[in-house]
């Protein structure tokens, strides 16, 4: 099981870095048979470890001023018997919600919301999030500029500056 986990974590790392990497390329890089790589990926998909395959997009570049992202701190009163999960379930159903995490510290949920403009996001927060009966407070922070996203620096990589040297 431990060995399987090692292989799986390497494959996950490669897919996370570049999900367009082919089975054959992964097999070569990891020195594993293609069939084994395919089997591991199948298992990871079935077990919901791999949730999907998508590109990391610098939306600032893609949309210009046509989209805004907000990070919302939400304070709630957990529901009896159901704790925080029931509240989270109600929140993550909204398509505007791109991510939601239960947090330690001074607020309960950290929520990433996307909309076409500030008004749309503000409306969503006031009409849907703040209006929920369990919610006792919100704080909305709009993203002004994205520097690094999911481990990737948004600025274009600098060109290879290694110079010719006698070694």
């Amino acid at each position, binding site marked *: 099981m431990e060995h399987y986990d090692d292989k799986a974590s*390497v494959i996950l790392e*490669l897919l996370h870095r570049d999900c367009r990497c082919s089975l054959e*390329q992964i097999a*070569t*890089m*990891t*020195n594993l048979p293609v069939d084994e790589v395919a089997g591991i990926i199948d298992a990871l998909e079935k077990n919901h470890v791999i949730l999907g395959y998508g590109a990391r997009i610098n939306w600032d570049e893609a949309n210009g001023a046509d989209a805004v992202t907000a990070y919302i701190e939400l304070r709630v009163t957990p529901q009896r018997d159901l704790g925080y999960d029931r509240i989270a379930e109600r929140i993550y159903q909204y398509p505007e919600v791109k991510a939601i995490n239960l947090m330690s510290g001074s607020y309960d949920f950290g929520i990433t919301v996307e909309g076409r403009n500030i008004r749309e996001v503000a409306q969503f927060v006031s009409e849907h999030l703040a209006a929920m009966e369990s919610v006792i407070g919100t704080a909305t922070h709009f993203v002004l500029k994205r520097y690094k996203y999911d481990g990737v620096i948004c600025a274009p990589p600098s060109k*290879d500056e*290694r110079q*010719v*040297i*006698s*070694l």
Partner: protein
Amino acid sequence: MRNMKELLNSAVQAIPPSGIRRFFDIAAEMEDAISLGVGEPDFVTPWHIRDEGIYSLEKGKTHYTSNAGLKELRTEICNYLNRRFSLRYDPLSQVVVTVGGSEAIDLFLRAVLEPGDEVLIPEPCFVCYRPITSLAGGVPVSIVTKAENEFRLTPDELKAAITPKTKVLVLPFPNNPTGAVMRKEHLDAIAEVLSGTDILVLADEIYAELTYGNEAHISIASIPEMYERTVLISGFSKAYAMTGWRLGYACGHPDLIAAMTKVHQFAIMSAPTLAQYAAIEALKNGDADIAMMREEYDRRRHTIVSGFNDMGLECFEPEGAFYAFPSIQSTGLNSNDFCEKLLYDKKVAVVPGTAFGESGEGFVRCSYAYSVQNIQEALNRIEAFVKHR
């Protein structure tokens, strides 16, 4: 202008220019050229190490250090060598911090060679040993390592090269350009040949952290009979992606290190202070960085080696460093022509094996210190080049 060449030192004049530069000067001017030529990590020095260097400047650590290097750095070097390779050195008398491993090689050869002393150099190898030997008054003697021996130095080859004038054996493993390594049994066999002689060993282990597979690097200095006669040379360039910081070190017998430090103190004074503070951080907290980079190189290694073998260019599996050394003999071209035609036809720059000694004829060196995408594109172009021959 007056021709000044007649005033130059004859030993310097006799040194041929490096064979590596030529192709890359051409490639640098070509649009869309891809290089597999650079012999340094593509990683940037890990941030916590850079940050420590910056912090040392903020604190005003801008003075010389002691000639042998910061005591704390020498102590950390000893701790590291003990932790990683079971080697024990005294930081006060057995370590000198140098400007890269190359300076340490120069110091050692200058400190020990008398005119006419022979230095045994297994080839193909890094380009500096021959010229430095010549400049120090020694005589470089090549030992040709062979693909069928996985480019390792064999005891028979060593025995055949030893003469009464042999003073030094260079052991450059893991090897640039072949990627060959010497495992324990191979080093034991070499040690057996050397025992009973006074031959010193220059163990250039700059790629020690970049070995692949289940077996870790072993230093010849860890063999008890070899410890005193071996000067271990290493540095921070390859393991921590710190090439531009120019920091290396040598460890060995106190008499040898004292002599090397004497040369160093007059030629260099001390290694850069900024780099020394950064290196302390690297040694204390950089093991995870090494592991991350090694894993990444290993994936690229599999990609490039299988790529060459699949296209019919036989490539022995390198177990160390970050170079593949495929044979191009099946193309009917010599190393130089292969590289030149490949560059002009497909805009891919690789280094002819002959840049690392005549024994490199029939091979080319391809660095995999490049992204997988870069390697893959280069392999596609090389395959197209080979198929149309």
